[in-house]
C-alpha cells in the first residue's frame, strides 16, 4: 500500500474529514466574532460563553420542557440572540465611543459571570445531550466510519456560513451595515437607524454562537467550560483570517480545523498549540492576517 509521509492515505482522508468537522465549529464562531468586530469594533470575549449558553438552552429545553433537538436548533439561537440584544442595548452600546479595550474588558467580565453562574448551578463535568434519532448511526466511507451527525454538522455549518456571508455582502440590509461601518454619520443622514443596525448585527452574530452551541451539544458534554476551551482558539483564527474579514474567518476556520486534525496524527502532543504557532507565523509575514486589509 502506498503511504504518504508514513501514514496510509485512508487514515489521512479520515483525519482531513474530522478536521473539516471541527473546522465547521471554528468557522461558525469566528464568523460571528468577525461580524461583531467588523461592524461594532468590539472584541467580543463573551462569544465562548454565549456558545455555551446555546448548548445549555438546548439542554434545558429538552430536560425541562421536552423540546427536542430540531425546534431547539431554531429556538436556542433566538434565545441567545435576544440575550445578546439585551447585553448590547444595556451595556455595550455605551462603550462604542471608547477604546476597544473597554469593550473587551466588559465582554470578558460578562463571560466570567455567565460561566461562573452555570458552573455554580451545574458543576463542570457537564450533562449529556443525546444525538437526535434521525441522525443516529453512521456511514462506512471505506476510509472511515462517519457518524451521520458529524456529516450534518459540516453541511449545516457551511450553509449557515454562506447564508451569513450572502446576507452581508449581497443584500440591501447588508449594504446598509457595511456602509454604516465605513461612515456612520453619512448613513444616518440618509435616514437609516444605525443604532438599530448595530443591535441587530450583535444579536445576529451571537445567535450564530448559540447555533454552534446547539450543534455541539450532542458531540461534547454540555459543560460550563466548553466555551472557554474553544474561544481562545477561535480568536487566534480570527486573527489569522484578518480581523473583521468575514470571508477570511470562514476559510481560516475550516483550514485550521484541517491543520489541527493532521497535527493529531503526526505529533498529537502539539495539537493544542499548533493554531497559535500558525498565528505567530501569519502575524510575522502578514500583520493584517491572510484576508485582512489595513484599517484606516
Amino acid at each position: 500500500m502506498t503511504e504518504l509521509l508514513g501514514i496510509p492515505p485512508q487514515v489521512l482522508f479520515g483525519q482531513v474529514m474530522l478536521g473539516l468537522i471541527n473546522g465547521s465549529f471554528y468557522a461558525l464562531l469566528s464568523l460571528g466574532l468577525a461580524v461583531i468586530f467588523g461592524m461594532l469594533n468590539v472584541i467580543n470575549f463573551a462569544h465562548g460563553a454565549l456558545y455555551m449558553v446555546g448548548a445549555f438552552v438546548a439542554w434545558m429545553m429538552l430536560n425541562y420542557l421536552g423540546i427536542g433537538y430540531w425546534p431547539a436548533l431554531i429556538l436556542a439561537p433566538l434565545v441567545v440572540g435576544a440575550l445578546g440584544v439585551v447585553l448590547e442595548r444595556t451595556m455595550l452600546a455605551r462603550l462604542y465611543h471608547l477604546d476597544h479595550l473597554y469593550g473587551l474588558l466588559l465582554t470578558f467580565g460578562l463571560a466570567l459571570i455567565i460561566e461562573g453562574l452555570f458552573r455554580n448551578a451545574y458543576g463542570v463535568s457537564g450533562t449529556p445531550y443525546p444525538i437526535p434519532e434521525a441522525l443516529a448511526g453512521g456511514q462506512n466511507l471505506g476510509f472511515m466510519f462517519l457518524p451521520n451527525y458529524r456529516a450534518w454538522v459540516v453541511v449545516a455549518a457551511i450553509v449557515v456560513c454562506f447564508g451569513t456571508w450572502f446576507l452581508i455582502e449581497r443584500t440591501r440590509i447588508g449594504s446598509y451595515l457595511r456602509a454604516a461601518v465605513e461612515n456612520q454619520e453619512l448613513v444616518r443622514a440618509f435616514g437609516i437607524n444605525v443604532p438599530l443596525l448595530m443591535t441587530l448585527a450583535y444579536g445576529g452574530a451571537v445567535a450564530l454562537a448559540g447555533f454552534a452551541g446547539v450543534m455541539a451539544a450532542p458531540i461534547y458534554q454540555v459543560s460550563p467550560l466548553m466555551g472557554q476551551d474553544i474561544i481562545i482558539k477561535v480568536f487566534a483564527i480570527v486573527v489569522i483570517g484578518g480581523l473583521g474579514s468575514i470571508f477570511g474567518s470562514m476559510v481560516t476556520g475550516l483550514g485550521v480545523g484541517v491543520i489541527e486534525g493532521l497535527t493529531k496524527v503526526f505529533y498529537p502532543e502539539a495539537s493544542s498549540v499548533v493554531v497559535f504557532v500558525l498565528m505567530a507565523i501569519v502575524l510575522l509575514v502578514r500583520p493584517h492576517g491572510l484576508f485582512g486589509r489595513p484599517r484606516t
Partner: protein
Amino acid sequence: MKRTTTATFGALAALTLALPAQAEISDDVLKIGVLNDQSGLYTDLAGPGSVEAARMAVEDFGGTVNDKEIEILSADHQNKPDVGSSIVREWIDEEGVDVIVDVPTSSVALAVNEITREKDTALLVNGGGTTRLTNDDCSPTTVHYAYDTFSLAKGTGQAIVQEGGDSWFFITADYAFGHSLEQDTAAVVEENGGEVLDTIRHPLDTSDFSSYLLQAQGSGAKVIGLANAGSDTTNAIKQANEFGIVQGGQSLAALLMFITDVHALGLETAQGLQLTTGFLWNMNDDTKAFAERFAERRDGQYPTMVHAGVYSSVSHYLKAVAEIDDDGGEAAVSQMKQMPVDDFFAPNGEVREDGRMVHDMYLVEVKSPDESEGDWDYYNLVATIPGDEAYKPLSDSTCSLVN
C-alpha cells in the same frame, strides 16, 4: 573564658534535649490547606467537595486538637504546577499551614511534594494518582492515600486482559498522571500475556477525541485504554460511542473514572464499563451514612473516592497529631505510619514506610439504566481487590525510605 564556653555548651545541649518534649502545635492553631482544582476539569471529582469533606472530618473530630483551634484554608491550583507551588509556599511561609490535602493533577502534586519535603510540612495526596509519589519521589512527609495508578492498572487492567482483551491501544493524557497510568497498565497487560500496539498522547483538557479514536480504531487493538481523567475521559467515551467503537467489536477501558464522571455521562452511555475505585458509597451502613451526610451538604452530589479519602486522611492525621502533640510534617506522618487506619473508608488500612496507604480496592461494573435504583446508584461490585494485591509490593519499591 573556658568556663563560659562550657556553660554555653551545656545550656545548648540541655535546650536541644528538651526540644522534642516541647514539640507542640505551632502558632497555637492547626491549619489545614486544601489545594485542588476549583474551576477546571477536575472540579467535580475534587474541588469544593474535598473542602467540605475536610470540614466534616474536623467537625467530627470536635473542632480542636489538644485544645488548639483547627482552621481550614482552600485554594485553586488551576492544574498548574507553578500556581500550586506558589500557593503552597505562601501558605507555609506566611500563613503557617501545617498540612496540605488533596492535590489532584499529579504534576502539581509532584511539585508540592518537593516543597513540603523541604519545609517539613505534611502532605496527604488523595486526588493525584502518580506512583512516583511513593517511589522515586517519595518523601517522609507525604502520605499517598485514596488510590494510585498502580492500583487502577491492577484492578481494571488485569480484569480486562484476563477476559481476553490482550491487545491494547492507549489514549493518554500528556502529563505525569497519564504517563504513570499508561506505564503501570502496560506493565500489567504485558505481565498477563497481552501486548501494547500503540500509544497516543493528547494535551490535558482536550474536547475532541475523534481523531485519536479513529487512529485507535484503525490499529485493530481489542482494547482502547483511556489513561486520562475527568472530562477528558467522559468526552472520549461519549465520542467513542458516536463513532461506533464498541459496536465495532473493540472495548473501552476507562482506567480512571469517578462516580461524578459516570453521573455526567449518564448510564445509557456508561453502562457495562469496568472500573476500579477505592470507595463504594453504598457498600455498608457506615459508607452510606457518610455519603448521605456529604450529599446533603453538597446539594445532592455524592462523594467520589477522593472526597472520602480526604475525610479519612484528615481524620487519621488529626488522630496522629493529637497523639504526639506535634504538627511537624515528618513527625506527624511517621505517627500516621504507626497507627492503623480504621474507618468507613479503609476498615483495615495501613500507611506503609513509603507513604502508601494500603487499603482494599473495588473492581466494579457500571449498571444499566434498568438495574439502577436511582440517581447515584451506579455500580455493581465485581471483585474486591485486597490491599496487598492492589498496591505495588514494597519489595518492588524504588523509594529511598524503604530498606
